[in-house]
């Protein structure tokens, strides 16, 4: 079974600063995918970024980037130039690859990020 651990329950960052959210996972799978989802106070789950385990290059999406360390089983999210709208719960999630037509997401417990003025 896979496990995902987010060791930072809460974090705070000032507007325009950079913050890194940590995520580690445990798996014996070689083919898998990793995701970060954001859940603002509106409750909507929004995909932030995803990473294929077979890719060495770290994924980036505008101000969001990941530091994927496969050997260490670490998948941290860096948010640059933080904005007030980035205030949300952030969830790290794991998905096995090649599971056919349905693949479940295994989520971490989340990190609540507060962006302040």
């Amino acid at each position, binding site marked *: 079974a896979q496990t995902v651990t987010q060791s930072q329950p809460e974090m705070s960052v000032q507007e325009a600063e950079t913050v890194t959210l940590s995520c580690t996972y445990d798996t014996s799978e070689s083919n898998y995918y990793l995701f970060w*989802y954001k859940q603002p106070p509106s*409750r909507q789950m929004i995909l932030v970024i*995803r990473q294929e385990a077979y890719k060495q290059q770290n994924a980036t999406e505008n101000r969001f980037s990941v530091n994927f360390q496969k050997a260490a089983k670490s998948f941290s999210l860096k948010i640059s130039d933080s904005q007030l709208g980035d205030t949300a719960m952030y969830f790290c999630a794991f998905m096995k*690859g090649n599971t056919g*037509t*349905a*693949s479940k997401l295994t*989520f971490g417990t989340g990190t609540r990020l507060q962006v302040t003025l």
Partner: protein
Amino acid sequence: DTAVSQTPKYLVTQMGNDKSIKCEQNLGHDTMYWYKQDSKKFLKIMFSYNNKELIINETVPNRFSPKSPDKAHLNLHINSLELGDSAVYFCASSQGTSGSPDTQYFGPGTRLTVL
């Protein structure tokens, strides 16, 4: 246009009642999911359907019964509601393709409160 929609957004009911939550996606996806988010914000998969066929069925009480009339709809029916069923229920959908990240897109969630 809303990609994944759920109705209702809020549901307050008494213990012992039966209720349904509806989910629809207009993304043309083949696979749909139900997740439960508890009071501590922990998200866990409940069910998954691919093209009306049940694929994933986690250890969920059989008071919960998913129904997929077609691949664009996945409803969740809950019998004999209990206090512990209070949670936010999320529907999600994905293309249902193997060999690539099968990204899941979530609905807005339904907050169920059992009194």
